[in-house]
Structures are given as C-alpha cells and as structure tokens.
C-alpha cells in the first residue's frame, strides 16, 4: 500500500517520493504535508461531486518568493502539478481543494505580509495570505483614512485570492480587478515577473499606473494558470465623511424589471456609486437566520405561498435593494434627494434608512459590507437547507430589466424542477449584473446531491442556449464553462499555456486550460 492516499496524475510513486524529498529540503518537514489528517481540511468541499475527486496528494506551505521558485523547479523536474491557494476561502467555487484529484496544494496562507499601505495615494501592496480582517485591523490600529472592499466572507478571505478569481465587493471599489494595480508572478519556469510599472528599475509607480508599457498582462493571470501570484497591489477608497446606507423593499417578484430600469441610470451616472445589490426573498431570509425547516419539513422546492409568508413574518420584500451614498454631508443630501425622488416617482418601493432599520439583520450586515466592515452574517445562506451543499451559479447579464427578469424566471423554473430554491441576488455594476444564485442543497443527502448536480448542468445548458454564460464557477464545472466561450478562445489559451508552462505544472485544468 502506498504511503500516499493519492498520487498526482501520471506521476509514479518513486518520482513523487523524490519530489517530496526535494520539497522538504526547500521548505522543511513541517511545511510539507502528506499525512491524511493534515490533508483533511483541504478536502472540505461544497460541490455536488464526490470529495475524492478533489483530493490533494500533498500540501506545501511556502512563505517566500525564493521558496516558490525552488518549488516550481522541482515540479518541472518530476512533472508534479500544483494548485495554488492564497487564503483558500473560495466557498461555493471549490474552496481550498485542487481542481484535479492528486494535485499538490501550494498553500500561501502563511505568506501574509502587508508590504505597504499608502494613506496618501490610497494604495496597498500585499502578499497572498493577507486577509481582509488583517488589513482592517491594520487600518484601524493605525487610524488610516481608508476603506476596504470585500466579498461576504470578508473576515477570513483575502484580496489577492479573491482578485485572482475576479471576485467582487459592495462598495464603490467593488469591482476588485478593476481596482487592482501591479502584480508579481512566479512564472512556470521560475522567473519572477512584475506587471505594469513594476519591472522598471527604481520605479515608484507600480501601484498607481496600471498599464505600464506594451502588453498589459495582469488580466491574463486572473482566472488562469499561467503563474503564481506572490504580490498584488490595489487601490483603496478614501474614507468619506458621511456614509449613508439604505434599503428599498419591493413586494412583488415581477417588480424586478422596473427595479433594474430605475437603478441603471443612477448607477451609470454614479449618483449611487457602489455595487448595489438586489436580493431575493430567500437570500434575505437566510441571512437573517431563517431556516427552511422553520417552515417546511417536506423535501422539494419551497412553494411561493411559503415565500409570501416568510416575507410577511420577517418584514422582507420580494426584492430588497441595498445601496449607499458616500461623501460630504452636502453631496449625500443632494444625491439622497435624487434617489428618493426617483423611487417616489416610480410609485413602488419602500425606502428604509439606517435610522429606521436600527441594529436589525440583514440591514446591519449589508451596511457593514458596503462600508468595508468585516462580518460573516451571509453564511446564514448555508443554513437555509443545511448539509454543506452550495454552488454559485453566476450568469452575467445586461443591467436591463427585461433581461434580469428573463434570467430570474429561467433560473427559478430549473431550480424548482429539481426540487431546489431560487436563492439569488443581482450585484449591479454600471452596465452589467453579476446575477448570483446560490444553488443550495443538502450534501449529506446523496439523492439531493445528485439532483443539485443535474440542476447545475441544466442551468448552464439552458442559459447557454439563451446566450448567457457565468463569470466564475466551481472547480467541478470549470471545463464545462470553458466550452461556453468557444473553441477559438480555448485554442489561444492552450497556445499560451504550452508556451509558458510546457510541462503543465501550474494548476492544469484551471478554467479548462491544460497543455
């Protein structure tokens, strides 16, 4: 019997032994994990596939660029594939587990220096393991006039890993990759590349000017496997004198079209500057600690009559818009009048201010996310059905009412057909929507897990048929989603992969890219 619970694909035990020995020489024995109990936490997934499919063969803990360069060299020698994680909190997208069974996880969580925060230029430069909580504490302790933007797992997630998967937040800086500036990457051949101005000797503009000269490569390293990001710069929003979060509740599911038409001009003109959210009833209910079992014990989709009852009991809308204003008191007052006039004119929607909402959830956690204060309240979603099953189905949409309504109805029909619920929100960009749907299921129930898997396939197929594709997906479906974007794109991705990583050692399979 092998001393490893699983080996990397196409790597013999003898070669793996030799690689592990060399990894140990580079990192020290404590930082090379192969024992089953040490690998256990890396195997916790929420996807609708068997845990074994994403089992790691080993985990490497590195803390310096030089160590990573040395690791890459060994990987090339023995053709050992590595899966890089930063904070590894990619819940609903694959968590910390590798895309392919047997890959070695390179865990950079301990590489966690905040290299630089500039309170005047409002920039940061961080290592992969830095968490938003760590940054938040740093900003608070040093009383810096800056504000973070982050995803809901804020307290335990981090900017580098989130941005590498092009994740989003809820402040005016919510489009994280847009606000990213400067990147350092260890290439598959071990060389260290700095993007933008970062490769100019003596440069001071790495975190202030994005493009540099010639091809700008940062985007190429996000959602890909062309290198290992070891440093990332990004812009921070100055803390405004006034922050005014608010909610607008709408009673009917069919109101979605009008809501989107109402919000788009306000967003494009930046009257409302942040990534607004339009959350459906069940998203709202779950994040104020409502469980499906409070209402139903029967399996299957939750009927509309129950949704209406929940709305009534918990004082929720069918749609709940969360947005905020930022600036001086005068600026906020002017824009508040514009917003409330628009709502009044529409004849629909109840405006709820922070004063009215008080300390209640989910308003409180939304206000915190929109002002860069970490919390984990949104994990209440995972209690709606419980059992640890969750996959994000997140199609991109125009910020157009008719499109959003069409997507919502299509998703709900398919989810309900498979006995699951529409738990969705729209994250409103300037012109786009991240239509984020949490496909929640009881993963401890094999039959329901199978249904969730079939459901996710059907969602992808049906949306693709209408010309829609997702912006990001869990590791079990990354090959499938790559197909949505067509063969020409895949060919060029493979050509680049072969050129940069001829041995295919960096995360083969990521976003469907392999040699």
């Amino acid at each position, binding site marked *: 019997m092998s001393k490893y619970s699983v080996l990397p694909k196409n790597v013999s035990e003898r070669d793996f032994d030799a690689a592990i020995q060399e990894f140990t020489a580079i990192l020290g024995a404590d930082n090379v994990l192969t024992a089953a109990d040490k690998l*256990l*936490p890396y195997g916790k997934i929420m996807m609708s596939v068997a845990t074994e499919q994403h089992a790691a063969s080993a985990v490497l803990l590195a803390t310096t660029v030089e160590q990573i360069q040395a690791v890459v060299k060994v990987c090339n020698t023995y053709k050992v594939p590595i899966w890089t994680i930063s904070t590894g909190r990619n819940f609903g997208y694959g*968590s910390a587990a590798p895309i392919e069974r047997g890959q070695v996880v390179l865990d950079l*969580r*301990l590489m966690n220096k905040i290299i630089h925060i500039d309170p005047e230029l409002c920039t940061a430069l961080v290592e992969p393991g830095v968490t938003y909580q760590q940054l938040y504490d740093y900003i608070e302790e040093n009383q810096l006039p800056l504000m973070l933007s982050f995803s809901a797992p804020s307290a335990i997630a981090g900017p580098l890993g989130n941005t590498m998967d092009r994740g989003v937040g809820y402040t005016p800086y919510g489009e994280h990759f847009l606000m990213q500036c400067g990147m350092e990457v260890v290439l598959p051949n071990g060389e260290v590349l700095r993007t933008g101005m970062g490769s100019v000797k003596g440069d001071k503009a790495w975190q202030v000017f994005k493009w540099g000269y010639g091809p700008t490569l940062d985007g190429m390293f996000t959602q890909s496997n062309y290198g290992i990001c070891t440093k990332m710069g990004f812009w921070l929003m100055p803390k405004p004198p006034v922050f005014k979060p608010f909610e607008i509740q709408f009673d009917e599911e069919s109101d979605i079209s009008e809501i989107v038409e109402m919000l788009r001009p306000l967003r494009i003109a930046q009257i409302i500057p942040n990534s607004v959210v339009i959350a459906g009833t069940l998203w709202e209910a779950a994040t104020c600690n409502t469980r499906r079992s409070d209402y139903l014990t029967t399996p299957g989709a939750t009927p509309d009559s129950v949704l209406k009852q929940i709305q009534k009991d918990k004082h929720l809308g069918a749609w709940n818009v969360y947005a905020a204003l930022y600036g001086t008191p005068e600026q906020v007052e002017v824009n508040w009048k514009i917003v409330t006039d628009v709502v009044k004119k529409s004849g629909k929607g109840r405006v709820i201010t922070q004063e009215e909402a008080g300390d209640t959830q989910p308003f409180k956690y939304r206000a915190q996310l929109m002002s860069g204060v970490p919390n984990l*309240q949104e994990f209440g979603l995972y209690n709606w059905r*419980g059992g*640890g099953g969750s996959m994000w189905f997140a199609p991109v949409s125009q910020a157009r009412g008719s499109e959003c309504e069409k997507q919502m109805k299509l998703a709900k029909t398919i989810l309900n057909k498979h006995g699951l619920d529409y738990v969705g929100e729209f994250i409103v960009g300037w012109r786009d929507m991240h239509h984020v749907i949490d496909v929640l299921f009881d*993963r401890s129930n094999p039959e329901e897990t199978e249904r969730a898997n079939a459901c996710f396939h059907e969602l992808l197929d049906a949306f693709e048929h209408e010309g829609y594709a997702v912006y990001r997906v869990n590791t079990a479906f990354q090959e499938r989603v790559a197909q949505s974007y067509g063969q020409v794109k895949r060919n060029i991705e493979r050509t680049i992969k072969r050129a940069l990583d001829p041995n295919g050692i960096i995360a083969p399979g990521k976003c469907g890219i392999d040699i």
Partner: protein
Amino acid sequence: PASADDKGRRFYEKVCARCHEADIGPVLLGRRLPPVFFKTIARSGFNAMPAFRITDVDEATLQAVAEYLSTSKPKN
C-alpha cells in the same frame, strides 16, 4: 504576556464568534464538550461549517481555543 486561555479566547472572538455568536453556527460557550471535539470539527469542517487548515489556525492556537471553549461558561 497573554496566557494560553487569552490566546484561545482571542482567536474565538476574532474568527469563530462571527458565526457562533451570530446564530449562524450553534452555541459553543458553556457546552462543556471535550477539547478534542472542537479540534476535530474545526479541522474537518462539518456540513455548513468550513474546515480550518493548519495555516488558518496552528495546532497550539487551536488547542487553546478548544480548551477555552471546553471550560467556558454559558453566555449570560
């Protein structure tokens, strides 16, 4: 210098309490469960609860959290 107990409490309040004191995860304070229970669940994750890797919380800190919880008084 912080005692082992402080270390456990501090980590609990910074990370675990964000769910376990917010009605998202079950109440842990005052449960009188053995330390090994808390350690096992933290490392493996359990249903809705994510797993915590050795890089999220090292052995000594997790031990301190587990001991803090196993001897903690119920809230209020």
